[in-house]
Each structure stands twice: as C-alpha cells, then as structure tokens.
C-alpha cells in the first residue's frame, strides 16, 4: 500500500513529491472494465489506459519501484501524477467556499482517495491514499505545513520553486512513517 504526496505551487507547478510505502497489506480489488478493453489498448498508450481503467497488467511492473509490495491498478507514476493534477479542479472548487485548510477526501478515482491541505499562501499539498486514516493525515499535513513554512523562511529558497533540501525530505519521510 502506498501514499503519494505532492506539493503544488499556486501556479500548479509541482515543487516536491514523495511516494511512501507502508507494509500494511492491501486488499486486492479487481475492476471488470479491464477485460472489456479494445484491442488497440496494446498501443503506446496501453499502460496508461489500463491503469486508468483500474486494471493490473503485466506491463506495469517495469514502472513500479515498490519491489515486493503487491500493486493494485493505476500505480504508474504518470497516472498518479495525473490523478493528483486532475483533483486540482475539485480542490479549487471547494477552497473557494470552505475556509478549512484541511480538505478531507475532495476527490476519488478508482481505488484512490484524494485529500488536500491548502496553506494560507495558496500552496496545495495533495495526498493520494487508499485507506481511511483521518487523524493520521491531519497530523501529517500539519507537520508538512510547518516544514514547508521553515523552508519558505530560508532566505536562500525562492518561493514556489522546487524544494531540494535534503533535511526537508528526511523530515517529511519521517513524518510519513509516523502518521501514515
């Protein structure tokens, strides 16, 4: 089972991303749609198409970094990114009216649920997850917010540019391990 975190600037540029694997077992769900795919799905887009349909396919194993962990459908890196970016529309819709920073389960796609956290400065933290863990995610977002803020306060960091700090990376990973 995995979690995917993306930090997006107000102009929707990704400035940091993290994939976090937990050893907790995942329930395998099969999506019947995959069997109905037409033959042209074996073309160059096959991977994406099958992934979007939620199927587990042999072609994906090349892209998966998780090693021994069993992957569900749609675990391809580019698919994950697409789901995260697609959820932006929903997040922007919700954040116009909601004043809460933590937006719980704003979007769903196949097995993925998308939760988000919007900072006062309009940075969006997007988390793709498969299971429900409300309190953990709340604490996780809170820590990422603090770490992000400290990054911002560094005079050598230009706002809204990719975060390259290794300390930031280590801390976010530690936080993910703790709460997710």
């Amino acid at each position, binding site marked *: 089972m995995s979690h995917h975190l993306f930090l997006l600037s107000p102009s929707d540029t990704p400035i940091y991303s993290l994939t976090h694997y937990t050893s907790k077992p995942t329930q395998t769900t099969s999506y019947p749609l995959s069997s109905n795919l037409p033959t042209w799905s074996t073309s160059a887009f096959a991977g994406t198409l099958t992934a979007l349909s939620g199927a587990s396919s042999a072609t994906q194993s090349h892209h998966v970094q998780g090693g021994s962990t069993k992957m569900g459908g749609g675990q391809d890196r580019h698919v994950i990114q697409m789901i995260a970016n697609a959820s932006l529309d929903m997040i922007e819709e919700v954040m116009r009216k909601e004043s809460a920073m933590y937006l719980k389960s704003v979007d769903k796609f196949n097995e993925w649920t998308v939760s988000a956290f919007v900072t*006062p*400065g309009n940075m969006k933290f997007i988390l793709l997850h498969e299971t429900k863990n409300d309190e953990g995610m709340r604490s996780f977002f809170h820590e990422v917010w603090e770490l992000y803020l400290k990054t*911002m306060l560094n005079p050598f960091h230009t706002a809204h540019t990719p975060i390259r700090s290794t300390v930031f990376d280590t801390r976010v990973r530690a936080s993910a391990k703790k709460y997710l």
Partner: protein
Amino acid sequence: MQQYAQPHSRSSVLSGSSLSSAEHLSPTSGSARFSLPSAPSISTTLGTPKLALRPNIYDRNLNKTRTAEVSASAFAFLFSEVVQYTQKRVSGINDLERRLNTLGYRVGIRVLELMVWRAESSSKAPKREVRFLPALMSIHTQVWRAVFGRPADAIEKSVENEDEYMIIDNDPPIERHISVPRDLNTLSCSSYTAGVVEAVLDGLGFPARVTAHSTPTQQHPSRTTILIKLEKSVLEREEVLK
C-alpha cells in the same frame, strides 16, 4: 558552508600564524587540500566543532520569542541601504517603486504563512480567510501588528470606484527617518509595504494591484495611503459568495 567559512577565515588572520603553520606541518590536514585551513583551527581552540552547534532552520521554533525582536535602528539602516541600492539600478520613480514593491512581495508571502501559522497551528482545524472584507481587516490589524508591531490607522472604501480600498497609516515606521527630496516628491517608500499587502492578498486569493501614496496632513506629515485596486474576478467571486 560558505556562510560559516567567511568569518572563520577572518578570525584566523587575527589569531596569528602559529595555528595555521601547525596545520601545514600536520600530515592529516595536508591530505584534505580543499578544506578551509581555518576550520580545524577553530575546532581546536574551542574544543567542539562550531558547525554542529549552529541549529538547522528546521530545528528552530517558529513561535516568536522575546529575543526575536529586531532593533528599529538596525532596520532603518538596512532599509536605507535597500533604497539606495535600488535607486542606483533604476531609471525613474515608477521603476523604483515597482522594485520596492517586488521586494516587499517577497516579504509578504513569508509573513502571511508565518502569521497564520502562529495564529492557527495550535487549532485542530486551521482556517484560511475566504471572504475579502475579513481578509482586509486582518491585513489592517494582524499583518500590521506582525510587521510593524501595531495596527494600521484606518481602512477606507473608495467612493468613486467600488474595486478600490485604502489602508491608512499616519506614521509608517519604515518612513520615519526618510525625507524624500523635492525632485522625487511623488515617490513613496511605502511601496515596500504595498508589496507586502499585495503578496498577502495574492496568497489569500484576492489578486490586486497595490500602490502607496503620500497623503500628508498638517498633523501627520508622513501619512501614507496604501491603495488596493482589486481585480474584477475578486468582485465577481464576492458577488457569488454573498
């Protein structure tokens, strides 16, 4: 690394040549050709490596402590240099104001995040400001308090244009020691503050053009008006949310 190395190499000049000559003789330092010679001399004199003592930015507390106050004089000198530096690189008053605005903007995005964090981080469900008028109020009080230590003096709404708002400061601290010469009399150094306000509004999702204007009165010779001209989208959104 660079930042720490500078003062050390200077202090090694003062500490005399005995330490550095000892290093050249020792075989261990000879192999590390690219390390700065002064760094080991510091660690030998102090007993512990200095670099490790310096807290990482991620280890520091974000809450304001009493020692975090900055001297107003130090800031006045720094800001004076900022204006002089900028003035050498621009072609006119508008350009100068625009650059000061840009500098303030960089401060503003940080101020916004930090200020809200300090106010909301202890809460279970932290909130953002989504309506314009409360946001404007919070700029008038919270942002001013965070940046200048006291709230601004007034908020006004333009009578002629419904997309214009004004924040008024009777004695802006950053201009307290500045006397603008007559040939530049349209210049307002509060453009810097305008930049801070613009960044905060932008961050909260109310894009606007923010400018600063000197509006002196008999009583308050350095009275300044920060003029906020909102983008159309903000007004439309407020209409929808009503």
